[in-house]
């Protein structure tokens, strides 16, 4: 058994090893980008105000009040012959979806996904059901019921480019030609991958759009730690994500993992919503996934960029 001091010493010694020098080419890239990278300056009035002496600040503040009053008088005409400004209506906040943050998610809150990695032309909003959901990455909402750092259940959007036929040994088994663009193309390919005994796809409607639901289980007896790797991690390979040239999805968390894959036709774009649970996951947690899926809405992306989480 090591003492804390031993562990600290070993960790410090280990951290001392490894690269330190930044390659010149990285520095060159940074310096090349400077002319095209504007600096963000603090708003001028604020800085100036902070630097001023107190009497000057008071004078500036008074001037600002007068200027606002003049602008207000011009902008808002007198009402009904009675002097004074028309009261400014107070906007009522409307519950609008917020971008999925990193960290804990609040039950009852409506969030949206819009990352183009995984979401098509229409962003996806949904309302969280249940407690204990969190994210390491805004695209993956999960819950670790037995280990807080390890998902037992999750739900995530995907865009799929192709399907592997090999499952555990997926390397070199991508379909040629690639899977077709329709919901049925993907459902059929995933069903074929699942092999004999798999449940046929079920017609579903998600967010008012038609689609298919496919249930996929990693077969009993398959040790997922022995599956092909993308170089770092073992994966039971189902599909190749859009925009990727290598690797497999979805993530594999353990033996016996079960994925429910919703394949939705959103006005001509094939959107996949993948959910997963491991054996032993409670029916309550699985029901929460169903409730989240039932709350999904597809909506146009706003014209302005959405706030980053």
């Amino acid at each position, binding site marked *: *058994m*090591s003492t*804390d001091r031993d*562990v*600290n010493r*070993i*960790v*410090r010694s*280990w*951290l*001392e090893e*490894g*690269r*330190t*020098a*930044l*390659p010149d080419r*990285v*520095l060159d*890239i*940074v*310096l090349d*980008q*400077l*002319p095209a*990278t504007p*600096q*963000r*300056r*603090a708003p001028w009035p604020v800085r100036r105000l902070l630097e001023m002496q107190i009497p000057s600040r008071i004078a500036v503040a008074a001037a600002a009040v007068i200027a606002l009053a003049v602008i207000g008088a011009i902008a808002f005409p007198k009402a009904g012959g009675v002097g004074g400004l028309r009261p400014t209506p107070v906007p009522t906040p409307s519950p609008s979806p917020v971008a999925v943050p*990193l960290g804990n998610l609040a039950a009852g809150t409506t969030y949206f996904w819009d990352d183009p*990695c995984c979401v098509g032309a229409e962003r996806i909003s949904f309302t969280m059901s249940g407690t204990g959901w969190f994210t*390491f*990455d805004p*695209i*993956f909402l999960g819950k670790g019921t037995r*280990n807080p*750092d*390890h*998902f037992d259940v999750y739900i995530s959007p995907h865009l799929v480019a192709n399907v592997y036929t090999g499952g555990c040994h997926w390397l070199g088994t991508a379909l040629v030609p690639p899977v077709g663009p329709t919901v049925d193309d993907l459902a059929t390919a995933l069903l074929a991958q699942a092999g004999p005994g798999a449940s046929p796809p079920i017609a579903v409607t998600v967010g008012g759009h038609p689609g298919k639901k496919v249930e996929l289980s990693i077969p009993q007896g398959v*040790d*997922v*730690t*022995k*599956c092909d*790797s*993308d170089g*770092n*991690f*073992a*994966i039971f390979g189902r599909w190749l*994500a859009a925009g*990727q040239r290598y*690797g497999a*999805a*979805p*993530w*594999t*968390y*353990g033996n016996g993992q079960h994925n429910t894959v919703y394949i939705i036709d959103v006005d001509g774009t094939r959107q996949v919503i993948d959910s997963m649970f491991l054996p032993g996951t409670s029916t309550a947690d699985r029901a929460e996934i169903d409730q989240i899926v039932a709350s999904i809405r597809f909506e146009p992306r706003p014209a302005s960029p959405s706030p980053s989480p």
Partner: protein
Amino acid sequence: MPYGGSDVDAELIGRAQRGDEEAFASLAVAVGDRLHAVAHRILRDTDLAEDATQQALLSIWRNLPQLRDPARFDAWSYRLLVHACYAEGRRTRRWAPKIRLLPADEPDVAEGLSSVVDRDQLERGFRRLSFDHRAVVVLHHYLDLPLDGIAEVLGIPVGTVRSRLHHAMRGLRAALEADARPAAQEVAR
């Protein structure tokens, strides 16, 4: 250690704040290695570390005019770097599944067996940590930052720093003591 008080010339920082690209180039040379060293230790990947350092340096350039106290440059720049590391880590993690394959680095015969084992166990244990936890370990045990210094860099309460460090070190200790465990059962978080 790199953190012990800023050795970066305040006048250089001031010139870079006013948009002097030459001054910023000198600044980047002065801090580039230390930022990269920290990024490499948090991300455990050469390419990702270079990308994170590049993003951090550009972020420093962009936001430098808003740094009010040049004496706080070090803590401020480490904060931007750690955020760049989080972003790089998340970007790649999106495509990375959770089951780690076993390892397989050949031991260097010139090294003692125990150090090779320790290094391998530590590498696996460290990779199981979240980026939040990794950052705290690196800032404390590599940069020698005190807990309140880490809290300032990360913008979190000292109690959270203490909790993360405790959790991370417990994980690393467990990794070091895991040599009896069958490696094939390793499951990354």
